């Protein structure tokens, strides 16, 4: 479907399309510059810098952090936490989904408990994780992992359970054994649904890591934000937020890459634990 749309839009009125794109980029740039200009102008008002700092001060802080290595150090920490938490959560979610998914009775027994755990705002778990894992990197990894885990787990379970019975019958009619039905229909369907979960979970891994850093930390971008704020260093807060924005944007484009690579064949499973 997407391939067809792409060819159509590419073959129709190319020059007009290019002009339109250029215009849109032009407007974006203009809006950005105007925003910065208004911000800079507003910062000249008496006492305003305390609340909104100024683009020039933020830029100065950014270059200073870049030069002294602060930026690289804290960004690396946050990326490590995000990636580790994401990987562990995704693997655990897929594994748990495959174990619990096929066992309808076990799933039904566990259902209310899983929903209850899932419903807890993950931020509220942070203090408990501090008690269990200290304020080091593991607490953030676990927080990111827990967030990712549930999203991937629910998708995988749904993928295992909501396999189209007609597809199962089709393979059965071809002479497929139950083992072949498992490995050629159920597993690919569940993995495909798990990828949907993984894709949704990517930004949540960053949220988990940042929340952990905001609550208790001495490193990471979340720490940069909170430590700057506690010193009323507004320029520092904004500088850290900008780094965070860049990181989140990169992760979002990763989501798009996963989308493009898998949308040709991915299935989106219905996300209810009990389909019937």
């Amino acid at each position, binding site marked *: *479907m997407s391939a067809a749309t792409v060819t159509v839009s590419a073959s129709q009125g190319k020059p007009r399309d290019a002009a339109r794109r250029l215009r849109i980029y032009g407007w974006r740039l203009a809006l950005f510059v105007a925003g910065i200009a208004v911000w800079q102008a507003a910062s000249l008002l008496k006492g305003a810098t305390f609340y909104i700092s100024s683009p020039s001060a933020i830029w100065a802080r950014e270059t200073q952090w870049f030069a002294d290595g602060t930026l690289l150090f804290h960004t690396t920490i946050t990326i490590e936490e995000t990636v580790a938490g994401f990987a562990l959560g995704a693997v655990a979610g897929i594994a748990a989904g495959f174990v619990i998914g096929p066992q309808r009775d076990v799933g039904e027994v566990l259902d209310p408990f899983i929903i209850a755990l899932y419903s807890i705002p993950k931020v509220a778990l942070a203090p408990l994780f501090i008690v269990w894992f200290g304020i080091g990197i593991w607490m953030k990894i676990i927080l990111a992992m827990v967030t990712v885990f549930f999203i991937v787990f629910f998708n995988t379970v749904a993928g295992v359970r909501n396999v189209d019975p007609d597809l199962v*019958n089709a393979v059965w009619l071809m002479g497929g054994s139950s083992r*072949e039905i498992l490995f050629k229909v159920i597993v690919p369907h569940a993995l495909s649904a798990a990828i949907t979960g993984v894709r949704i979970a990517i930004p949540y891994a960053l949220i988990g890591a940042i929340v952990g850093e905001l609550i208790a930390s001495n490193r990471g971008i979340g720490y940069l934000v909170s430590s700057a704020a506690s010193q009323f260093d507004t320029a520092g807060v904004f500088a850290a937020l900008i780094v965070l924005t860049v990181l989140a944007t990169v992760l979002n484009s990763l989501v798009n890459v996963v989308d493009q690579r898998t949308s040709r064949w991915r299935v989106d499973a219905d996300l209810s634990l009990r389909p019937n």
Partner: protein
Amino acid sequence: MSTNALVRIEAVRRVFFRRDTEQLALDAVSLEIASGSFVCIVGPSGCGKSTLLNMIAGLIAPTSGRITNAGTLVDGPRLNVGYLTQKDTLLPWRDVLRNVEMPLEIRKVPTAERVRKARDLIEVVGLRGRERAYPRELSGGMARRASLARLLIADPDLLLLDEPFSALDAQLRQEMQNELLRLWGGSGKTVIFVTHDLEEAIALGDRVVVLGERGRIVRDEQIGLERPRDVVAIRRRPEFHAIEARLWDALAAHYRPEPAPS
């Protein structure tokens, strides 16, 4: 009993249970399908045509009565039976080539051989160049062609087709009907083709069996039209219209509109 019957359906009855109520889908159906013949089964929706086909395929068992295929009792799916359902059941995560290969993959045919056969059949059904497309990227007609290739690759002796072209537009349907006749002609394969379209049944079949409610056979007619046929040309023949009128009367006489579907 004729001696060359491939499929024998003997006093088959099938009851479904739905929310504590019994529903009689088929009652005392008996039918013989001659080996190598093209038999069309026509009937209004809900007459049990698909149920009958599912039982011949071995997907479900009769409540009473029995079905034999080549002299042995049907008690599960068989490798020499191909079933094309109304709905496409191509696996979404496999491209056309890998979908078509699937039956041979299950038979443990070596990769090189099954790829070669799959490519041949993809060519035969007119899907060349779409080997690497995923089912989602195919139009309804192309998906049908891919399903047909997957059905034929296993080289089944008995083809069960359940309203295979009903979702296609009229022109594409005729094209696929001719394609099917071309592929079947001289193959010696037995075809059981279920449809609710009387014209389609007459145009394709050697024999048309009209089912009434609960699978009661209200008419069983040999179609004496010549082979090979062109499904478009044959519809213009006066004999065609005579047959159609007779079968339509049989269908209409026994048709009672159902209450609201459950």
